[in-house]
């Protein structure tokens, strides 16, 4: 029998990235990654930098995100992500450059360095590279 599906919407400031019926969605909550299946109770979770994956008829697709929020309502699941990219769309060269740049900044430690920001940049770049590897 076909697995039951629910409506999933992934929206970024620039576009509606995904809108379809899926069987499950996994998201990087700030307290750990979790998976949402059908008939989940209303739920609101913060997401951090990491991997969102969704499953539909045994195919999984992956998204690299820098965080956002996930909302489960009776009518479906909505993800609002400030930045998100499909694994297959990630520009590996650019991500690698970004990682190298962030690493360099962190090792050189210029006096006005915003350490938190540089670390976040490094984390994002590494995340994108890791997810790009899964496509």
């Amino acid at each position, binding site marked *: 029998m076909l697995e039951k599906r629910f409506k999933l919407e992934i929206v970024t*400031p*620039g576009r509606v990235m995904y809108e379809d019926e899926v069987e499950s969605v996994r998201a990087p909550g700030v307290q750990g990654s979790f998976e949402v299946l059908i008939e989940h109770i209303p739920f609101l979770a913060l997401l951090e930098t990491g991997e969102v994956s969704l499953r539909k008829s045994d195919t999984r697709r992956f998204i690299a995100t820098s965080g956002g*929020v996930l909302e489960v309502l009776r009518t479906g699941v909505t993800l*609002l992500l400030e930045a998100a990219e499909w694994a297959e769309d990630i520009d590996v060269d650019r991500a690698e450059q970004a990682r190298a740049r962030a690493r360099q900044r962190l090792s050189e430690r210029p006096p006005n360095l915003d350490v938190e920001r540089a670390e976040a940049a490094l984390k994002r770049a590494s995340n994108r590279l890791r997810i790009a590897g899964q496509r």
Partner: protein
Amino acid sequence: MPTLREIRRRITSVENIQQVTNAMYMVAAAKFRKAQANILAARPYAEKLDALLGHLVSQLNNPTHPLLDVREPQRLCIVSIGADRGLCGTFNSNVIRETSQRIAQYEEQGIDVTLFCVGRRVRDFFAKRQYNIDREYVGFFRELSFQHALDMTQELSAVYADKQVDRVEVVHNNFKSAITQTVVVSQLLPIIPRAPVGDALFLDYLYEPQQNEIFESLLELHLNRQMWTLLLDSDAAEQAARMTAMDNASKNAGELIDELIRQRNRARQTVITTEILEIVSGAAALEG
């Protein structure tokens, strides 16, 4: 009376100008369509985020947050959003006028003003007049991205939470339609709390992490998206203003050319008349 050759030369030069303004009109039109598409594309995110925040606020009693904190304004931050380029009618001058009026007004009341400039034109104006510019964001309208909005709000909320300023106002052009753009002032910080959206069917969520932690992060997301909307709006307004300005310039050039052509014809007619007169009078002299 200019000579025939001078008039011809002027016609050519005005025609060249018309070609240029026409081309600029086309470019602005293309950019305008893109800017409009960007506004439309940003709408679903904004609506969903607002709805979500509305739900959450309806579940909170008395939300508190540094960014909601209303203080008596003693130091104020004005963010003045204009364009990087000129030739767009009154787009920049309206923003500049409103901004400088506000600064003068606040300073009269003894309120310190911190100035953030967005757009090269605005920055240049205030830099030239020795205003204190605390931050400037220049040259990003060419490739506007959400990251720019993020960078700005990060600095603004840091300054606000740090109590360096007590209010943040944004002076910007509001995009109403392709024909009208008006300068408006919006308060960015403190965030004006939204009315809770109570819908009877809505049941409370499960939260992860705590409710208030989520609320804090959502306020940041909200601020980012507000700034993003402002930037997109201003960008569309700029292109619309440039379209109108260039369209007017092309029309004026057309009128000027018509007038010059009339002058040219008259001058040519005069030349011909004089020549005929000379021939006729020459012949008359020979006969006599």
